[in-house]
């Protein structure tokens, strides 16, 4: 068996965006049950459990009382973790370690702000003392990209505009009103050149997916979505030689395309991690959908707009408008790609004849060290 024979059998996005009355473990359990139900499977069928936590995979296997676990993975690389998990699950299934891998994530940053963890990371003394945060580290990347390539705030705003146009059809999205370029460029500056509407939402909730062997997939009522390829990479500070204008997708992308045996023109839909507008712009370039530095021109004129743009993206509204649970948006990227391949996206943004999709996750920070995972998924009879 090859990892490309492995399928995603079930998905579930938690409907809540604010969950003050639930525990994080409870959210994990609810998305787990939702994804298993979507697949037509039960907790009894699960033989692999994967989460970056918190809580840990060990705690969650205990909480859920899972009795048949033969494989566990806790790869923790920020918001991209779940795109790593699907690839690792495919490898584990292909090598015979398990047949039904349950991948869950959940978090409650909207209900419980703050709570930064004390750190013994080696870089700790050299960053936070200067007032670093998520947004201003991404702002450094945006500023440098604008300097080198002439990218403009208006071009970054195009990304939010497209996402908001998609979100108007998603009744669960946090922000459902379409916005204009001016709405974005005139919104409050958070860390220049990024304004408030260049930033993703903060939401509670979570999501899950179930990765299954071809034998299990064949027995499910739902049409399977195939894990055609996955590539991963860490891009880092490089001892001080950091270049802020590109992401780890320059490595994870080609690895995924190669394993999947597909080319850019085969991609009908793309879920692109959108913690900030600049994340999308750099990732599109790095995946090779346009020339490096030309991302601004590429997104102008509605290239990202579903269903008819050159590269329809984030049709749920993405992290920018719909959902970014636990400050980690990767699972929702997988879920929307699966919806597109099943033909179950919201009608107005469903890409016609969508049979190959890409999902890209970004974890950590464009400003220091980051993880990137690229998934290529296929629908129907591959």
């Amino acid at each position, binding site marked *: 068996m090859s990892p490309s024979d492995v399928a995603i059998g079930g998905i579930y996005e938690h409907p809540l965006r604010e969950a003050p009355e639930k525990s994080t473990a409870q959210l994990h359990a609810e998305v787990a049950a939702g994804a298993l139900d979507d697949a037509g499977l039960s907790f009894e069928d699960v033989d692999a459990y994967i989460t970056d936590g918190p809580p840990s995979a060990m705690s969650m296997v205990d909480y859920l009382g899972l009795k048949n676990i033969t494989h566990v993975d806790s790869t923790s690389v920020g918001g991209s973790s779940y795109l790593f998990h699907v690839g690792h699950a495919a490898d584990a299934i292909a090598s015979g370690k398990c047949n039904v891998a349950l991948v869950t994530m959940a978090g409650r940053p909207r209900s419980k702000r703050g709570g*930064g963890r004390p750190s013994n990371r080696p870089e700790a003394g*050299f960053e*936070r003392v200067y007032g*670093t945060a998520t947004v201003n580290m991404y702002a*450094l990347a945006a500023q440098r990209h604008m300097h080198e390539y002439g990218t403009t705030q208006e071009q970054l705003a195009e990304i939010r505009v497209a996402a908001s146009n998609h979100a108007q059809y998603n009744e669960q999205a946090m922000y459902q009103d379409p916005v204009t370029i001016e709405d974005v460029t005139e919104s409050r500056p958070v860390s220049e050149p990024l304004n408030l509407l260049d930033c993703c939402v903060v939401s509670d909730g979570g999501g899950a997916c179930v990765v299954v062997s071809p034998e299990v997939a064949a027995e499910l009522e739902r049409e399977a979505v195939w894990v055609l390829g996955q590539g991963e990479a860490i891009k880092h500070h490089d001892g001080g030689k950091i270049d802020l204008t590109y992401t780890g997708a320059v490595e994870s992308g080609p690895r995924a395309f190669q394993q999947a045996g597909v080319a850019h023109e085969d991609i009908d839909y793309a879920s692109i991690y959108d913690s900030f507008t600049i994340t999308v712009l750099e990732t599109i370039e790095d995946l090779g959908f346009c020339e490096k530095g030309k991302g601004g021109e590429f997104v102008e004129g509605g290239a990202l707009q579903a269903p008819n743009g050159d590269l329809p993206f984030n049709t749920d509204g993405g992290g920018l408008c719909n959902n970014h649970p636990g400050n980690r948006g990767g699972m929702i990227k997988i879920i929307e790609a699966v919806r597109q391949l099943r033909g179950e996206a919201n009608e107005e943004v469903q890409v016609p004849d969508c049979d190959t999709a890409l999902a890209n996750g970004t974890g950590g920070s464009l400003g220091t060290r980051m993880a990137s995972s690229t998934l290529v998924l296929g629908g129907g009879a591959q």
Partner: protein
Amino acid sequence: MSDDSPGGLPTPTPSVNPETQPYWNATADGRLMLRQCTDCDEAYHYPRNRCPACYSESTEWIDASGYGEIYSFTVTHGGVGGDYAEATPFVLAYVTLDEGPRMLTNIVDVDITGDRAGLAIGQEVEVVFAPVSDGDNDHSLPRFKPVR
């Protein structure tokens, strides 16, 4: 807000470990140090015993000139926690040191609300030291100001 001195920003106590203790001790004397590999000659930052360019353990401390240029910067108005939440707007930046490595830092002694003279990518900057507020430690935070 205009920073007349490096003291215009918070000075949180850095986390120090055995690999980085000499770096922080030197800041108390107004010296900015880098780690350099004696095998491949690469100077790097943040400091650590093993060279991240060639993996050699033959590395040593060197004094940096304290000069460099702005590689990127951002005027931060929000989205930060702790003491810095009260210090906005402030400038976070990467400075490319003359020795090569880029380090995260703040740019001080620039008028953020006015014409922002001195705040641009490529602007030449020099190090200044802000003593940390924690009286138990004898350290300073290296920050940079425009060379005028």
